[in-house]
């Protein structure tokens, strides 16, 4: 029992990271209709940037904040310079561009920084606390807590601020919003920036466990995509819950299904996706898509 509980908490922590990256995917998709396959690589690059800030002897909190700010700018630049040019065509070009970005950012990280795995400090102390007869790592609780904090902040921004209202308007109907004078393109840029910043946080959360390297986020984007799909791609809540489901499923499968073990964990999001496809293609919480013909 205690082992299962540990798995569950570990899974919730990992799932929070998948959920954070999935949130970023959902924001970008809702704002611009694009699936950013490079979201994980952008997060990885931002985390390397945090590492560079750390070498300047800045405290971890400042380094991570700096990385999130840098990621915000990066997201805005990518939207403005690349994505905006290719979005109107009505084909798959934006996705192809994001795959190109995947390759480019992956290579850039190896070139600018290093191919060797790097240590990255954790935000949390390495203790554990007792809970229901077993020990849970503080970092696990902390990670879930950070995600909840992020969700809370985003909720406040989107639902209770004018800026959030305008972003939702721009995502809901860009044409009507533009006709009302809303600077839609600037809102879309901000959406990409915000998503990238959330992704950077996800990177900073996972790096202490898996070591920071260019390949760090490669499989993670698959988990995040699966989590986003569980949420139907347009539900932030679904993305977070989806992340938790996948994280816990992965932890349980890794420790209790001998075929999967620790190295074939990527089968878990694959299986989850197949299940979603079979039973609820619109995701657990998603809505039907409307398309122009």
């Amino acid at each position, binding site marked *: 029992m205690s082992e299962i509980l540990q798995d569950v908490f570990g899974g919730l922590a990992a799932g929070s990271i998948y959920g954070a990256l999935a949130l970023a995917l959902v924001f970008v998709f809702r704002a611009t209709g694009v699936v950013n396959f490079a979201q994980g690589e952008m997060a990885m690059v931002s985390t390397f940037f945090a590492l560079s800030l750390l070498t300047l002897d800045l405290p971890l909190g400042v380094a991570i904040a700096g990385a999130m700010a840098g990621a915000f700018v990066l997201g805005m630049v990518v939207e403005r310079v690349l994505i905006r040019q290719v979005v109107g065509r009505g084909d798959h070009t934006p996705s192809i561009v994001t795959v190109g970005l995947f390759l480019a950012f992956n290579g850039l990280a190896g070139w600018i920084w290093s191919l060797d795995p790097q240590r990255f400090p954790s935000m949390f102390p390495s203790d554990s606390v007792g809970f229901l007869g077993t020990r849970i790592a503080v970092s696990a609780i902390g990670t879930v807590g950070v995600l909840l904090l992020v969700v809370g902040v985003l909720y406040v921004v989107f639902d209770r601020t*004018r800026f959030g209202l305008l972003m*939702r308007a721009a995502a*809901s*109907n860009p044409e*009507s*919003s*533009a*006709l*009302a*004078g809303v600077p839609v393109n600037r809102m879309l840029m901000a959406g990409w920036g915000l998503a990238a910043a959330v992704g950077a946080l996800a990177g900073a959360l996972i790096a202490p466990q898996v070591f920071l390297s260019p390949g760090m986020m490669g499989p993670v984007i698959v988990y995040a995509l699966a989590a986003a799909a569980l949420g139907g791609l347009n539900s932030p809540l679904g993305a977070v819950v989806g992340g938790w489901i996948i994280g816990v499923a992965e932890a349980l499968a890794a420790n209790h299904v001998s075929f999967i073990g620790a190295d074939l964990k990527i089968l878990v999001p694959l299986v989850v996706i197949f299940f979603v496809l079979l039973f609820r293609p619109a995701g657990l919480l998603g809505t039907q898509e409307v398309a122009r013909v």
Partner: protein
Amino acid sequence: MLSVENLAGGYGPVQVLRDLAFDVPEGGVVAVLGPNGSGKTTTLRALSGMLNRTSGVARLGGEDLLRRDPAAIARLGVAHVPEGRGTLTELTVEENLRVGGYVLGRSPAVEERIEMCFEYFPVLRERSRQKAGHLSGGEQQMLAISRALMLDPKLMLLDEPSLGLAPNLTRSVFEALATINHERQVAMLIVEQNAALALELATKAFVLESGRIVLEGEADDIKNDEALRRAYLGY
């Protein structure tokens, strides 16, 4: 107040509008009629900054509309109610109105104008906290008109306000438009398939065919001339 000359334009390689010229007087209502594909919607889009490629002149009280973006045109007081209403479906009714009033900034005028919209359309007040996507077609049309009213327009561009609405709802919508036009002196350019309804409300009208004006005149004259109606409007 709106004066248009030699207006031409289209989408990419496709030319839709050819050499249009018309006026909308201050506080006046002009109906734009014609068959599908004649360029009625495109005309409105050209005036609200949504058309990729335009040439000619379109002046609102002296300010050129054609080389501006939609936000600048909204600030000049042109409100476009698009075909299909353009409801921000994910947002509540009240949020829709707030977005409509974006150009007013954070001033108390926003609250005043929201109140004004509720006066014109009480049903919106009842539903103010509901998601706009859940409203009926008629209610969404009222919401669209209100959203346009929020920015305190001098000119409203309405694209097929009667589309998909039951006859009694259409009557209410047009009555509301008449009231708004009289009380607030808002000029209107209305694209309509329902020519009879449009001609009741309008003072002037013109008929488009393949991007050109083939008939124009006083609304009453066109309405009362049976031969003209049969030839150009099909009724």
